[in-house]
């Protein structure tokens, strides 16, 4: 079977996931998969946060529960960080290559159909990234929080939202998250090949609904502090 022209070494075999990463469609599939992970995290994070309306005791107890096992905590953190890193690097790479795909801009290109959310995914994404950094420094590490006390989550949250900039940063970021998910949560089904003309309208309604729920759910906390429903 082998002929003399055949090289000795078989061609290098990239891993299956590596092959996905190297192609544009595969990269989008990985973005979709990591997007699901991040979305589920964000959703349960919101449910956890809303316990603030049940009083300081409840919220701080919940925080202690999350910290009960350092091994588990750091495993989850590492997993989420990997998902975020894959998502961000893929998103930036794809955006840069899309810019290369049209080197000469149009004088005018009319958008006839698409949503603003779909055309600004990179910007809503980068805003979320900037927010994640600030958020971790504010409420996890504490260096961006003027009155940080380790383990006293309710207190720390009220310090952040006691300041106008804190409220503004959080609400703007949650609106960006809403935009990102408004398009992202249906687009991911397209990227994974799970959508069709029969299910797409339903997926788009679902995406819009979760985007609104997450934005309002997260924003309700700074708003509640602002209007005095939650007090120190």
């Amino acid at each position, binding site marked *: 079977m082998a002929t003399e022209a055949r090289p000795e070494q078989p061609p290098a075999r990239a891993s299956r996931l590596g092959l996905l990463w190297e192609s544009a*469609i595969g990269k*989008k*599939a990985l973005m979709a998969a990591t997007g699901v992970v991040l979305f589920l995290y964000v959703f349960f994070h919101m449910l956890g946060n809303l316990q603030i309306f049940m009083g300081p005791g409840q919220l701080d107890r919940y925080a202690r529960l999350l910290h009960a096992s350092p091994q588990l905590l750091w495993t989850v953190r590492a997993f989420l960080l990997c998902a975020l890193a894959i998502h961000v690097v893929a998103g930036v790479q794809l955006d840069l290559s899309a810019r290369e795909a049209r*080197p000469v801009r149009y004088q005018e290109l009319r958008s006839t*159909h698409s949503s603003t959310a779909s055309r600004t995914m990179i910007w809503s994404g980068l805003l979320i990234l900037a927010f994640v950094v600030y958020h971790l420094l504010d409420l996890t590490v504490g260096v961006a929080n003027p009155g940080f006390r380790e383990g006293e989550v309710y207190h720390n949250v009220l310090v952040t939202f006691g300041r106008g900039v804190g409220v503004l940063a959080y609400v703007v970021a949650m609106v960006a998250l809403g935009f990102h998910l408004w398009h992202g949560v249906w687009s991911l089904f397209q990227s994974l090949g799970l959508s069709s003309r029969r299910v797409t309208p339903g997926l788009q309604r679902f995406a819009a609904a979760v985007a609104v729920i997450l934005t309002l759910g997260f924003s309700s906390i700074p708003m509640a502090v602002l209007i005095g429903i939650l007090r120190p």
Partner: protein
Amino acid sequence: MRIVLDIWRQRGPRDPGRFVRYEVPDVSEHMSFLEMLDVLNVGLVERGDDPVAFDSDCREGICGMCGFLVNGDPHGPTHHATICQTHMRHFADGDTLRLEPWRAAAFPVIKDLVVDRSAFDRIIAAGGYVTIRTGSAPEANAILVPKTDADRAMEAAACIGCGACVAACPNASAALFTGAKISHLGLLPQGQPERARRAVTMAVQAREEGFGHCTSIGECAAVCPASIQLEVIARMNRDFVKATLTGRDEAAPVAVFPRRGPAGGGG
């Protein structure tokens, strides 16, 4: 009616190009858009000027040769029709229309409104075929095709390859075109033997040509004169991901036709 045109004039691939204003004073509303340009060109030739270059062949919306933007709309204001099918009655007396060629790294301008779409041909050549049994013709009804599959395949096969999807896409992606070709073959029994391979080779070739990725924005399907549906992209993605994760090939996929050199020739 009187029509004012701002037309992209570019002498050749290396010319930077610019918009030039023309006036066509005696346009009939019954003219097609391309007939209106023919009238303009007759005038230009009579004056000894260079006529405006634009592509066309069938002039009835079936060949896919024509296409440019009219005021930012690929194929003009009537969606789901080509520019050759668009008549001047859709415009008003005194309108100013800007005509701009498709813009994409993979579609270099040849002259004025004419772009080189041979990248599409190379995507087809990379996998847009089926193997057939040679010899005596088989019984026509020997292979049964479910009606919905036949319908979906026919819909996808309606793609005329005009390139409006690429032109309309903010990422200059060829996903709708490639998805249509992959769907039209992959939905039918005759297309099954190459189905997995086809999705990989055609998508890899599209990337090699310098088209962008798909963000599910949907401008492509909105302007498509053949009404190709966005779901063909989902079908391509599914075939591609499945083929990549389960394929038996030892080697990583490479483009069938390597990217053309910076000089634009060769390869």
